């Protein structure tokens, strides 16, 4: 009977829409309130950053690649440098490795906290939103203390890092992360047990492990579907010296994504603590590289949003031939469309948010 009564309508949604965090356009096929099909469309904020690689030399390009995304800026800079280091075949000093790991975990904390706040906003819990962002402010202050800038830190360099951190700054950081952990543990119950939160998140946007695997989901989105895929397990930078187990959940819904990201904040705090404790005493920060890069390299890293892939091709001059970034949101778009199908129109904002979309990353 449903077939005869339901009438299909197509609703264009975005790129400008009050509930959308990022400029993505979706063509939705609706049957009453239910979404039966969806077609994504990106390309509204393409900036052609990858093309700039032919105009800026490989050292300057670091500052361009950092600006691919404001939130994962540090990891983009680090990934670019790691790729060029792989082309040069140099090993960075140990202290630089630990600093890179520590700073990338700091950026993971503030990215996940941003997401948790936006999630609280999306399900209409304004005070929780501000509570999380209030804690996030502390970690941003720490990033500024360590690198001189709140978001775009510009501390990477091909061959190492540019800034060192003294013991005082490490002590301040460890005190601050204790404070953040305490604050987060206080709101943990709200995210995990609160009635209104559960009623908005549980059972919404199911992505089964098979679908996640077949469609190539990455990052917390895949881990929330029970796939223990975390590139940090490959042991980049200081990760071989650090105790680490990827966090997964078998619920496969929006609640699971919230759970995974929340627990990852606590896990990153733990990783930072280990980094501080094991920080090498040798203050060498840069392995000098000589000449121009020649050859090509791939690097895979775990960003706050998931797996990112960098590819560089160098021709022996100071300009690279090609530099390519495959960002996690790009990989997560297709699984996202799968989760949207069959859901209510009213949950759409929440569903799009649940992959932590970064469209400016995707389009570069």
């Amino acid at each position: 009977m449903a077939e005869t009564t339901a009438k299909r309508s197509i609703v264009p949604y975005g790129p400008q829409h009050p509930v959308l965090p990022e400029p993505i356009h979706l063509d939705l096929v609706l049957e009453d309130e239910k979404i039966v099909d969806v077609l994504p469309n990106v390309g509204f904020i393409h900036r052609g950053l990858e093309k700039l690689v032919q105009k800026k030399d490989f050292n300057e390009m670091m500052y361009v690649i950092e600006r691919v995304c404001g939130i994962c800026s540090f990891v983009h800079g680090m990934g670019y440098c790691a790729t060029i280091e792989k082309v040069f075949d140099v090993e960075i000093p140990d202290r630089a490795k630990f600093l890179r790991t520590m700073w990338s975990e700091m950026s993971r904390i503030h990215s996940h906290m941003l997401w948790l706040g936006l999630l609280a906003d999306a399900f209409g819990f304004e005070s929780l939103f501000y509570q999380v962002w209030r804690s996030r402010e502390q970690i941003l202050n720490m990033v500024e203390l360590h690198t001189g800038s709140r978001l775009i830190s510009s501390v990477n360099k091909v061959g190492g890092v540019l800034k060192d951190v003294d013991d005082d700054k490490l002590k301040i950081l460890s005190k601050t992360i204790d404070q953040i952990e305490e604050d987060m543990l206080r709101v943990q119950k709200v995210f995990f047990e609160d009635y209104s939160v559960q009623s908005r998140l549980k059972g919404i946007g199911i992505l089964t492990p098979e679908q996640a695997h077949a469609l190539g989901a990455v990052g917390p989105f895949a881990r929330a579907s029970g796939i223990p895929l975390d590139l940090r397990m490959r042991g980049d930078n200081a990760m071989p010296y650090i105790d680490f187990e990827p966090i997964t959940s078998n619920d496969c819904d929006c609640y699971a994504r919230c759970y995974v990201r929340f627990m990852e904040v606590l896990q990153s705090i733990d990783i930072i603590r280990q980094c501080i404790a094991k920080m090498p005493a040798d203050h060498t920060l840069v392995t000098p590289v000589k000449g121009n890069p020649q050859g090509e390299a791939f690097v895979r890293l775990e960003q706050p949003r998931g797996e990112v892939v960098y590819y560089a091709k160098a021709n022996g001059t100071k300009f690279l031939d090609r530099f390519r970034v495959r960002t996690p949101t790009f990989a997560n778009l297709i699984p996202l469309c799968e989760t949207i199908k069959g859901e209510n129109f009213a949950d759409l904002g929440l569903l799009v948010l649940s992959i932590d979309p970064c469209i400016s990353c995707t389009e570069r």
Partner: protein
Amino acid sequence: MAKLANFTPTILKNLFSKPATTTYPFEPFKYPEGTRGHIENDIDNCIFCGMCTRNCPTRCLTIDKATHTWTINRFDCLACEYCTVVCPKKCLHTVEGYQEPMPEKSTVTYTMSEEAIAAEAEKKRIAAEKAKAAKEAAAKKKAEEEAKAAAEAAAAEAAPEAPAAE
């Protein structure tokens, strides 16, 4: 009930604690040490080598060797600190305080002080004199060596001729 009152401890804590925000601008903001506000040039140490202008990712710097000026367009500057890394004299550094808003993009020019220019000219003069002296000495030595070589050659030429004359 347990499902409902989870946020209450946080609310109570917030009610009885200091606000997280400050009353800027009445209460000035305290920057952490080493924050990147804007670039300053310790211009008297600058040698106008142009490393900073060539390497700046946004090309917001210009130098003029003739007038001893270094100009920065602060509205284009990213405060990335790359110029401070490449500067051979380490005369660039970042200090706190961001560029204030203005109706249009403007530049700031640093000019080398008279004394520094005079000192530099003096240094150049001394260096030039030294170079000249060294060059003269070298020329003299070369001339001497040439004369000696010529004398030796003449002697060598004369020697084999002697048996032939016998």
